[in-house]
């Protein structure tokens, strides 16, 4: 694939705008709260779009098109089952505690509800995890741009990191959030034409259905047994593992996304952030997954010259399919110079939104939950503002380091992602019990978190899927790694839940007075009586639920 001058002009215009937005917002930053928390002043339409854009990194985009080509419409479960319900739950039930408690971060909420060690455990694992995930995403982007455009890996990694650093350093979280919205628009502008063109070429949805095996165009029909569907997952594992544990764990406790909602200008706006974000989120599969599905249909169609319209890309020198290249190779087939620039800029934008999300979450957690808690407790605010800014630079530098680690030791990164998966999987149980059961105690929560992590490691160590896991022996073999992941999450959650309950009952409860604002039943939740229905969380959540159920039925 080769780019024309106009494509570079588009790319350069985009870079100028993101840095320009950071520049215009620089004067807004005068305290550490402005820099790290946006001073809780961002309008709700902006926080809603940033909420989903921070999650829409380059890895997700590349991965969703890849999974679309590999598994078909079932991939949409990652949105309709694996995101929307959790987003609704977060807005309706959890946001009142996050926003109302005045906690500055998710780990800080744990400190207020439980104790210092729960916060420390969560803050440190989260900080390390964000650095590595932005590094991995940077590596993925650098590799892809090197493969398709033959750009230099070092230049890609360093230049994109420098731009993210420039605008987050200048305007802090506000700048990251504002840019995420622009990036979201650009992702849609860059990818929607691809979905439309690829789908039209493949003869519309009907044309795709007629060319693909039927288990790739139905999302629920073949869920009865793992052997029938391409993902190798059965109904319970999917709904409980992905739909409940993993997705609630991610959307409800991951500070990366929660931070966006907490930047909103009022409690009502904070609660509506994930609800309003859910509306575009549920339609994203049509932009990010559909091109992948259409690619498979196109690969079966023959043009007038007798050649296939499209060939699924292969790994270098092999016969193994490289699904990660589906998105970019498809662009090369459909986008002429001009639109191609928009598409690649969209990919770049998705990378930046994901990375800035990680960096801004990292600097907040590091500054408030690690530095201010353990290194220097009482300094003037200007000191923490300075630390926040320095942490931004350090965070970007560490991400670059992580990208190079990923490049040289691919297996280490796989392992790290595994380990963090183990730490994260049980988290939702801790928050669920912490927010809705006033009897749960700090020691209960901490031992629950640790047992959940142990349970996750044991499940992985005792089961095998596609040749992975089973280092302690093989008790059970899963049909796919995905099924294994879902079940690891289920076991981790259950262990954490049970141990937290048992240990809490054995330890002394905290006085109810101390839990006001932190636990359901002891907190007054305002119900926005005077507000119009679409400005109130509950009716909004009902509308979103109806829409997502309709989508599920439509593509069942």
């Amino acid at each position, binding site marked *: 694939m080769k780019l024309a001058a*106009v494509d570079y*002009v*588009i790319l350069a*215009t*985009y870079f100028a*705008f993101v840095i*320009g*937005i950071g520049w*215009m*917002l620089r004067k*807004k930053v005068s305290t550490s709260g402005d820099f790290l928390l946006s001073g809780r*002043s961002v309008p709700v339409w*902006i926080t809603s779009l940033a909420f989903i854009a921070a999650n829409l990194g380059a890895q997700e985009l590349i991965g969703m098109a890849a999974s679309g080509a590999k598994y078909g419409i079932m991939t949409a479960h990652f949105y309709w089952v694996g995101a929307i319900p959790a987003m609704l739950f977060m807005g309706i039930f959890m946001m009142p505690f996050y926003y109302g408690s005045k906690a500055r971060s998710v780990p800080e909420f744990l400190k207020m509800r439980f104790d210092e060690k729960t916060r420390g455990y969560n803050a440190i694992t989260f900080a390390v995890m964000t650095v590595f995930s932005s590094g991995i995403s940077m590596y993925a982007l650098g590799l892809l741009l090197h493969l398709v455009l033959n750009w230099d890996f070092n230049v890609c990694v360093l230049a994109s990191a420098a731009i993210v650093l420039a605008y987050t350093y200048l305007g802090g979280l506000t700048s990251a959030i*504002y840019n995420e*919205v*622009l990036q979201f*628009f*650009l992702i849609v*502008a860059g990818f929607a*034409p691809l979905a439309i*063109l690829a789908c039209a*070429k493949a003869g519309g949805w009907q044309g795709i259905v007629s060319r693909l095996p039927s288990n790739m165009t139905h999302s629920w029909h073949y869920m009865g047994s793992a052997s029938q569907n391409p993902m190798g997952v059965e109904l319970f594992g999917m709904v409980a593992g992905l739909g409940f544990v993993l997705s609630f764990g991610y959307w409800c406790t991951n500070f990366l996304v929660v931070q966006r909602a907490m930047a909103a200008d009022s409690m009502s706006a904070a609660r509506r952030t994930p609800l309003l974000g859910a509306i575009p989120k549920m339609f994203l599969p049509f932009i990010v997954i559909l091109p992948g599905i259409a690619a498979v249909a*196109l690969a079966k169609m023959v043009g007038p010259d007798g050649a296939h*319209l*499209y060939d699924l890309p292969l790994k270098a020198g092999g016969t193994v399919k490289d699904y990660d290249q589906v998105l970019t190779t498809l662009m*090369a*087939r*459909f*986008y*002429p*110079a*001009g*639109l*191609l620039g*928009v598409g690649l800029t969209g990919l770049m934008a998705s990378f930046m939104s994901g990375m800035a999300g990680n960096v801004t979450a990292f600097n907040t957690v590091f500054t408030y939950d690690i530095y201010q808690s353990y290194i220097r407790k009482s300094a003037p605010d200007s000191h923490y503002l300075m630390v926040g800014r320095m942490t931004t630079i350090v965070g970007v530098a560490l991400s670059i380091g992580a990208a190079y680690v990923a490049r040289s030791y691919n297996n280490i990164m796989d392992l790290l992602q595994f380990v963090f998966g183990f730490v994260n999987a049980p988290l939702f149980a801790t928050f669920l019990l912490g927010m809705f059961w006033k009897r749960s105690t700090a020691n209960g929560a901490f031992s629950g978190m640790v047992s959940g992590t142990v349970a996750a490691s044991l499940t992985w160590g005792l089961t095998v899927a596609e040749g992975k896991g089973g280092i302690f022996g093989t008790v059970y073999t899963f049909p796919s790694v995905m099924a294994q992941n879902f079940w690891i999450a289920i076991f981790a959650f259950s262990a954490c839940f049970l141990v937290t309950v048992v240990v809490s009952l054995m330890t002394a409860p905290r006085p109810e007075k101390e839990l006001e604002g932190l636990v359901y039943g002891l907190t007054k939740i305002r119900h926005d009586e005077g507000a119009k229905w679409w400005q109130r969380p509950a009716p909004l959540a009902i509308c979103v639920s109806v829409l997502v159920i309709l989508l599920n039925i439509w593509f069942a």
Partner: protein
Amino acid sequence: MLDLRVPSGWFFVILGAILVGMGLFAPDLRAPLTETNVNLYSGLPMLAFGGFLLIMAWRAVRK
């Protein structure tokens, strides 16, 4: 506080103008699998979206 609709609006107006310009001055530009003037047809909605954001921002200032 910066109204995000202003920079986003300008960005899409410029992007749309570039694509529409390409569509008008190089109407025969095609990718291997496209048969229509894709730049023109995708540039027009971008131009309209950018214009919409700018009008919304302008109305907010006038109020």
